[in-house]
């Protein structure tokens, strides 16, 4: 059953690719719009070997990483404070609740006006998307810590600082990582939009250039790259999570 399942999981995408190729060659799929696997590979391999694809991917990855850090770090700090201190929560929650639902893409023009056309506008766009998700998850993580652990910390003489260090932070970590993962998904979404305007490199830029040139194959190459990047980044987060939260049950 298990080997059968693995086989089917391998065969089904392969069959889909073959079907796509066959339908394209029969003229049932419009290759001007949807291309076909063989043509995409013909474009993919040269741009991979020349380093062009990796260069643009690296530019995007760097923006994602910088934006992620710029959003996640204040998100964790503020989220912890809001979770721990009712007064901070009372002061900031209305602002968070009011601004969180605003689509991040809707404030991109404003970000461009404020940060200009350089790197910082792209990094900030990603940061703001990551920030909210990490903030909200971190706060929820602190608030969901079982009250018994507060009792134990108090009864066993934990100072205020030790309480943050030994209860609040580790207790919230699983939720913080859930926020990181959601944030990473949003970062991948935003990078393409952020590289639409005034970028000279990056996978998003590549996609929009391919659109301008009506080069469907190059566009598909970028989509494949986005998928690979998304997989690698979420794998990286999973790996870090395992190192940081060794007590989390993994079945």
């Amino acid at each position: 059953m298990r080997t059968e399942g693995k086989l089917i999981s391998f065969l089904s995408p392969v069959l889909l690719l073959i079907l796509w190729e066959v339908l394209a060659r029969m003229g049932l799929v419009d290759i001007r719009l949807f291309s076909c696997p063989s043509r995409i590979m013909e474009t993919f391999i040269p741009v991979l070997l020349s380093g062009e694809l990796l260069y643009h991917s690296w530019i995007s990855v760097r923006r994602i990483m910088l934006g992620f850090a710029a959003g996640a770090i204040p998100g964790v700090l503020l989220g912890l404070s809001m979770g721990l201190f009712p007064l901070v929560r009372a002061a900031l929650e209305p602002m968070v609740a009011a601004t969180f639902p605003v689509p991040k893409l809707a404030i991109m023009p404003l970000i461009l006006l404020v940060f200009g056309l350089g790197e910082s506008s792209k990094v900030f766009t990603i940061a703001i998307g990551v920030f909210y998700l990490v903030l909200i998850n971190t706060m929820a993580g602190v608030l969901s810590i079982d009250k018994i652990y507060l009792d134990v910390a108090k009864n066993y003489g934990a100072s205020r600082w030790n309480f943050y260090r030994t209860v609040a932070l580790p207790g919230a970590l699983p939720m913080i990582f859930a926020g990181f993962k959601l944030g990473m998904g949003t970062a991948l979404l935003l990078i393409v939009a952020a590289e639409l305007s005034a970028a000279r490199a990056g996978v998003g830029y590549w996609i929009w250039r391919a659109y301008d040139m009506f080069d469907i194959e190059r566009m598909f190459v970028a989509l494949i790259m986005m998928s690979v990047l998304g997989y690698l980044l979420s794998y990286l987060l999973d790996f870090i999570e395992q190192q940081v939260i060794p007590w989390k049950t993994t079945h």
Partner: protein
Amino acid sequence: MENNALSAKRDAILVNNISKVFPSRCGDPVVALDNINLTVKEGEFLCIVGPSGCGKSTLLRILAGLEEPTTGDAVVTIKEEGKPVNSMVFQEQSLFPWYTVKDNVTYGLTMRGVSKKEREQIADHYLKITGLTKFAHAYPHQLSGGMKQRVSVARAFANDPAILLLDEPFGSLDEQTRVLLQQELLKIWEGTQKTAMFITHSIDEALGLGDRVLVMTARPGKVKAILDIDLPRPRDLTVIRSQPRFLDLFHTIWFSLREEVLKARAEEIN
């Protein structure tokens, strides 16, 4: 005879006129504890039994400093410089999931700045006598319920407090495990002679462990009776359970308690 020895000892805990009233949003406030007075001697093992909801946990939480009494106060008179006043063994799963067994056991020591070397020694000692040495680096989710409560007990003893507070620590365990842990607790306790207050539902447990058993009334919780348990120590739980004296005491406590349980039930039905 051992209770004569007990009365010669100095007082460890003085509970003076403690009452606890919980405000309730609808209707009358709930009186959980009503004027509790109690003296616990140094080195005494006091068990408290009472119907559910009689406030026995509240009394322990007040002693632990986790709850403020509405009136009255509790004083621990045998504090030692640099050592904690009390350590609690909680009823529910209370180990930090993010720490290993050893780090859980040494939590109190870490919090009061005991050196790492000393912490290791103390942890090794208590892990050994609770049979957890092999699990020192395991996380709580890898342990059975009985093992988790062993770690909780080890954590409290390792902290070396003036008094131990145990809030139905074995309440959620199956019968076999419970008897094993009672016996182990007795062994550790006999080695340290710490003043202990132990809450339980089980008359059996109270008789097996305690020097005295305090029976509480149904809510509002009052002291109904305090009985001396004149069973010899060290005790073997399987042996003392078959002794006539054990059965006598069991009946005395049961009839004292039954009245209260019925009262509590009647109130629940109304």
